[in-house]
């Protein structure tokens, strides 16, 4: 299969799975913004998704997307280290034209995955998971009240009351910003949808998109912390 056997094919898988995850991030960020406008509306969105079959199917596809993107990242990184050879340069100097993010995509991706694990333990484990396994015990309780599986707004304010979580989420989203600024135009380059005219355009689109998405997420974190 040329998709896994050739270098360009493997990169194509990275590119398409990455663009799929970008699409997901856009939806997720848009839905989060609802929490700033109205708690009831946000909980309505949570109830609409809940553990309905389409939300579960979507989550499964999403998990597969993350898995493919991460598995291929590991495979490509190992192959690339081998191609570089055992003997490393004694002296290296950074090129101003080479973006820092582009050379650290794996590390940034690993930070994003770690952040994702923390994020799932904060929200998914108290929302979709209790409904899936039918266990009331998994619902979050802070001693005063128990947060219902569809009370997303309540979970937001509970999570971000803790300043440690705010710092973790902001760092996580900064890593995501760097990952996206390189990842988005790089995906278009790998697809072959690039040339001298579109290169600066794609880079600008990537920077704007990454900034909008990350600021959208951070806005909800800050809102949860102060509201």
């Amino acid at each position, binding site marked *: 299969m040329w998709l896994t056997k050739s*270098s360009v094919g*493997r990169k194509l898988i990275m590119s398409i799975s990455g663009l799929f995850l970008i699409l997901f991030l856009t939806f997720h960020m848009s839905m989060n913004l609802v929490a700033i406008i109205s708690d009831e509306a946000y909980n309505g969105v949570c109830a609409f998704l809940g553990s309905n079959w389409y939300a579960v199917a979507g989550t499964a596809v999403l998990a597969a997307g993350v898995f493919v993107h991460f598995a291929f990242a590991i495979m490509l990184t190992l192959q690339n280290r081998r191609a*570089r050879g055992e003997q490393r340069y004694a002296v*290296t100097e950074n*090129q101003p034209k080479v973006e820092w993010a582009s*050379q650290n995509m794996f590390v940034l991706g690993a930070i994003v995955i770690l952040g994702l694990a923390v994020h799932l333990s904060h929200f998914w484990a108290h929302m979709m998971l209790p409904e899936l396994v039918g266990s009331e015990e998994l619902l979050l309780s802070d001693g005063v009240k128990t947060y219902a599986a569809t009370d997303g707004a309540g979970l937001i304010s509970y999570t971000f009351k803790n300043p440690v979580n705010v710092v973790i989420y902001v760092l996580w989203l900064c890593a995501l910003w760097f990952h996206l600024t390189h990842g988005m135009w790089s995906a278009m380059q790998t*697809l072959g949808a690039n040339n001298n005219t579109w290169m600066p355009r794609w880079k600008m689109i990537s920077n704007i998109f990454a900034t909008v998405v990350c600021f959208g997420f951070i806005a909800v974190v800050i809102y949860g912390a102060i509201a």
Partner: protein
Amino acid sequence: MEKNINITLKVWRQRGPQEKGAFETHQLENISTESSFLEMLDVLNEKLVKGGQEPVVFDHDCREGICGMCSLYINGHPHGKDTEVTTCQLHMRRFNDGDTITIEPWRSAAFPVIRDLMVDRSAYDKIMQAGGYTSVNTGGIPDANAIPIPKTIADEAMDAASCIGCGACVAACKNGSAMLFVSAKVSQLALLPQGKVEAAKRVKAMIAKMDELGFGNCTNTRACEAECPKGVSISNIARLNREFICAKLKD
């Protein structure tokens, strides 16, 4: 303004592909800033030979930046820090009195060291043999205007064809990827009507050979483009990806 400088060289010495290499330090005095980098190495080798030592082995040929034979990773940059020049065009006026200059060979699994600073770049020849040509019947010279080609296309093909196959792209790439070289060689033909005929077959054969020879996967860091002595653009890599994906989808 001509002046003489004293420099310290840290040169990679390695007796053979399987041997363990190490840096060797040499002091050079009164090096003219008018001399080229390779002339400075000639001075070093003369000194070594006179002292009864083995001269440093390095690749060079035309010494005017077009043959692609010279290499050398100088102070963390292939062909030195100067932009769009090869090592042979690098001059000692770019260095200061008292500088320490570290010289390493290209380091990539697909370019094994032959000796000292000389590496085996025949992997590039093998990629070219896999498809970097057009199968034409020789005959009379056709009229230059018989096949109209837009100026912009002709220019782009010419820019791609300026690749001298020196290997700086692989040397600069953290992934040891040869995509800039292969993309230039695919583009110079794929852009022109004469090359389009075999374009799909060519791109598949050249990528397959590139992967087989142990070059890495491109991650679009653009280090190759920044270090290329001929300024070959990574838009060629986008074209290579496009040509390859389209060719595979048609199969």
